[in-house]
């Protein structure tokens, strides 16, 4: 047996249920307010991998680049390569998000590129979190009602990502385009975040996107 157990955890033919499955978001599409200032879309059931390693070690950084085609992002930033994104979470921790079902192959590719000698970790966390995309002219103001982190563009430009307080919990906020933001939400807190977002967005109008 190898030193680490790498296991394909997602079934091929069975449809999964995202953390917000019970909210029935698909049924709310098109039923939101016209002229809504906040648009919400769940980018559900993606492959999420936590990557740990020593960024200063060229073997690690090089291996990641070889496997993913992107450089390790520096502190508080996010890089993307097509449908893949890699986000700095901590000095030795990154969040890799890939399309649904690609997480197993991606993990194997990473492990192959990084080799057996290097100390690093790759952990599949796909079932534990989901991605919510928020877009629209009022998203920033809605975020101000939700987090004490400064979301002004001078402090939070596009390409920045932070883990921070949000209402009474915590999550990751990613600024992906001028009026587009993403929230990385833990599964068990997803319902609370969904309730909070509906409430905080009400004054700006909320529309659910497919």
């Amino acid at each position, binding site marked *: 047996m190898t030193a*680490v*157990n790498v296991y394909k*955890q997602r079934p091929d033919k069975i449809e999964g*249920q995202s953390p917000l499955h019970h909210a029935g978001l698909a049924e709310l599409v098109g039923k939101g307010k016209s002229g809504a200032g906040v648009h919400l879309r769940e980018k559900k059931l993606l492959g999420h991998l936590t990557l740990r390693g020593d960024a200063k070690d060229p073997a690690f950084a090089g291996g990641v680049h070889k496997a993913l085609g992107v450089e390790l992002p520096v502190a508080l930033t996010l890089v993307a390569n097509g449908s893949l994104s890699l986000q700095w979470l901590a000095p030795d921790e990154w969040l890799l998000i890939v399309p649904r079902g690609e997480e197993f192959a991606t993990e194997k590719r990473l492990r192959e590129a990084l080799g057996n000698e290097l100390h690093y970790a790759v*952990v599949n966390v*796909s079932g534990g979190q989901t991605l919510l995309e928020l877009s629209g002219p009022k998203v920033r103001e809605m975020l101000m*009602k939700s987090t004490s982190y400064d979301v*002004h563009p001078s402090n939070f430009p596009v390409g920045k990502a932070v883990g921070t307080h949000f209402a009474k919990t915590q999550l990751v906020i990613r600024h992906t385009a001028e009026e587009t933001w993403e929230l990385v939400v833990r599964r068990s807190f997803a319902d609370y975040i969904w309730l909070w977002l509906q409430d905080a967005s009400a*004054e*700006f109008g909320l529309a659910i996107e497919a």
Partner: protein
Amino acid sequence: MSQVNRLSRGGRIDRSQPLTFTFNGETYQGYAGDTLAAALLANGVDVIGRSFKYSRPRGIVAAGAEEPNAVLQIGSREETQIPNVRATQQALYSGLVAASTNGWPSVNNDLMGILGKVGGKMMPPGFYYKTFMYPSSLWMTYEKYIRKAAGLGRAPLENDPDIYDHINQHCDVLVIGAGPAGLAAALAAGRSGARVILADEQEEFGGSLLDTRETLDGKPAAEWVAKVVAELKTLPEVTLLPRATVNGYHDHNFLTIHERRTDHLGETAPLGAFSAPQARHRVHRVRAGRVVLAAGAHERPLVYANNDVPGNMLAGAVSTYVRRYGVAPGKKLVLATNNDYAYRTALDWLDAGLQVVAVADARSNPRGSWVEEVRSRGVRVLTGSSVIDVRGGKRVEAARVAAIDPVAMKVTSPGEWLDCDLVASSGGYSPVVHLASHLGGRPEWREDILAFVPGEGNGLQKRIDAGAVNGVFKLGDVIANGFEAGVKAAAETGFKATAGDLPRTEKRVEEAAIALFQVPHEKPTARAPKQFVDLQNDVTAAGIELATREGFESVEHVKRYTALGFGTDQGKLGNINGLAIAARSMGISIPQMGTTMFRPNYTPVTFGAVAGRHCGHLFEPKRYTAMQAWHVANGAEFEDVGQWKRPWYFPKKGEDLHAAVARECLAVRNSVGILDASTLGKIDIQGPDAREFLNRVYTNAWTKLDVGKARYGLMCKEDGMVFDDGVTACLADNHFLMTTTTGGAARVLQWLELYHQTEWPELKVYFTSVTDHWATMTLSGPNSRKLLAEVTDIDLDKDGFPFMTWKEGNVAGVPARVFRISFTGELSYEVNVQADYALGVWEKLIEAGKKYDLTPYGTETMHVLRAEKGFIIVGQDTDASVTPDDLNMGWCVGRTKPFSWIGWRGMNREDCLREDRKQLVGLKPIDPLKVLPEGAQLVFDPKQSIPMTMVGHVTSSYMSATMGHSFAMAVVKGGLKRMGERVFAPLADGSVIEAEIVSSVFYDPKGERQNV
């Protein structure tokens, strides 16, 4: 009723928009733009309430936050009741319903008023200290009496229909106050491109400029205000917050602003955009690079006899009502002052076509520009004089003016009574130092302006003061000072301000004030008619003198003794006068006396605003597992475990907790049950040193755990006390999966990271939480193998897949890791799948389990089953004072591990080795139907008199359906050596439950049922 005191023209009100409102049941009319106080004065309402202690009639005194009397109850319905609203700060709206908070049964005919003198004697100064302290058992009785009599407003009894929220703001410059200094500062900083917030507590920006008679650039000052506000609105990084009181200045330049968003529109907030509820109030939580404090100053009244009769007002407030609201609160004015600025009130009064009876100026020969203007208009100016007494019941009828010597505190002439209906007084101006002092910075006394200004403080505030709060009072200087402050604040936050033109102000000669606080009277203070210092708390000059005579010399003691500065106005009006009187009484200077502490909030804040949206369904996050929808659909009752909602039990029709739990327990023992165990903490551990790390954080040894196996582990803190437990499995040589308690998940991960990062960074290991990734369902019971076999491709042969091992394979078509571990003592399989696919797997197990009568069970059954086996729950059977040996779990301590580990040293302290420590044992009640209450204290001798010698307590206690009798776990002193002995639990109802000390393992002590 007509608006008897409304001037025919002038003011910033909109006379085309009359608004109807009621006060104490009477209907009145005011105009849009009025405050409630302005509208009440316009209608000639003199008596606004009764005083706290003496029940004397009181009227409106001020026009701002310092108002002590017009503190009203607002709201037409029970659910919209708002207590303690300052009428001076409440905009008038159509349909407003207001009532006095004081005055029982009515303000004009008050039983308490007749008994007033009695009430006063019943409550001499020191009432708080002397009466409330002893006997404390009577406090509730006193409180009812005081509340009823004092009538500080009441909270609504029904749910507030409105919502409140919070918003987080970050800015380079926060400007507090939008008077001349604040506007100039905001303009200077805003033009630089800095992020600026300008907050002001009033309905509109402008502060003193909204009622000043001074001009800017030769035009009314309000025109300059409009121009500045218009420019500020064009600056994209400037946020303007009217109706927003900066209430607290906290550490790290964090300030809280309380914005009243809809209080001017009605008693409940109308629906806003998208038909969504609007927050009635919003708290802005602001991080500011720099604060420009431009909070202005409060005028001080003079303290003369009967200065509380309605019709005694602040001079500046009279000007505000005349010029800003077109209201004349009287006809015949006597003005008492010690300074030039108050003369503007006489001029404003004359301009309104009203009579100024006289001006009494304490100075001997005032010659300032406004003084001369007042003289030139034929007003009698009495110098070296003051108002020393007032006559009148519910309204001023006359004022006695006499010559005084303010240094000797003597009246030097017989004086004369002047008929009047309004006495306006000004004793100078007190900078609003409150916010500057919230972090402990002490205000500093400036003798040249006879006022406290913000101190340099302790460096905790990055703050620049501007305008009147900074001791700068002349309008031109105020604007320049504000502009400079804005430039400086911008520069200090990295922005370059551009030069700007300041408006031209009028030139006038102004002379200094003289010190005058309490006005002398012929009689000594104690015998003179009451001279009120703090109107809201009925504190008199005599009361303060009494306090100092009784030895309460610290200003804080004077405050507590007299109640000076308590209440909703927190001494805004009276405190400086009060401490000046205390200082004189003790023969020390005002700065020697010092001020009391200033604390947030500056003005009262409704609880709704404090709570924000963190109420109702958003009060606390509720965490759910992937199977939550099934649990709800199948009638689970839920238990809170941390923030998780866990199924507690699944009652069938007609079942209570006990019946359901008994059924669930028997199902597990006799066939098979299923538990949602997803909430257990799960930590993925990878790295070549993972095994060594486990050796150091667990009490037991991990070196020899083979791949494919799992082991139970205990974790201790450094002191040797148990703090978490769980099973950890070896997934591969360098790969482990640790489980923790539900509540300990985050704590344990932080603990591992802490030790890795600070103590053993050389160990190559990474920890990642996978709690939410894996959903866990536990099949437990003798039929669990048969059931699982129907839905899995894993070989479940007992030798190939024995107890305390794990396997990979598909369960219901989903890749799974299955662990043969047990918390019930039965044959068990913990099935872990990616949470996205868990509900489907769960449902397939339920379906397949029908023929085995598969029974879903909750945490209560889990607790009973594990207790029957003597398995501990950390946090229930332990309390951070329990070692592994205390739990009789010495088998789980690796006494020969080569590298020391967390807790080893601690648990070997002498005290931890005592044999009479409280130890975990089983208790079997002698009466098998009696269930010991959890937490019950235990004694060896039930006949001992109180206080009895307590020897331990019950930690877990249940009725066992399996065994047919009650049982419990408990910690008992030296319990492990007392097997077979009796203990007693004396209960609060006088009964005693007797129990036998037995092994904590009640059921299947050899573990034959789980290891099959």
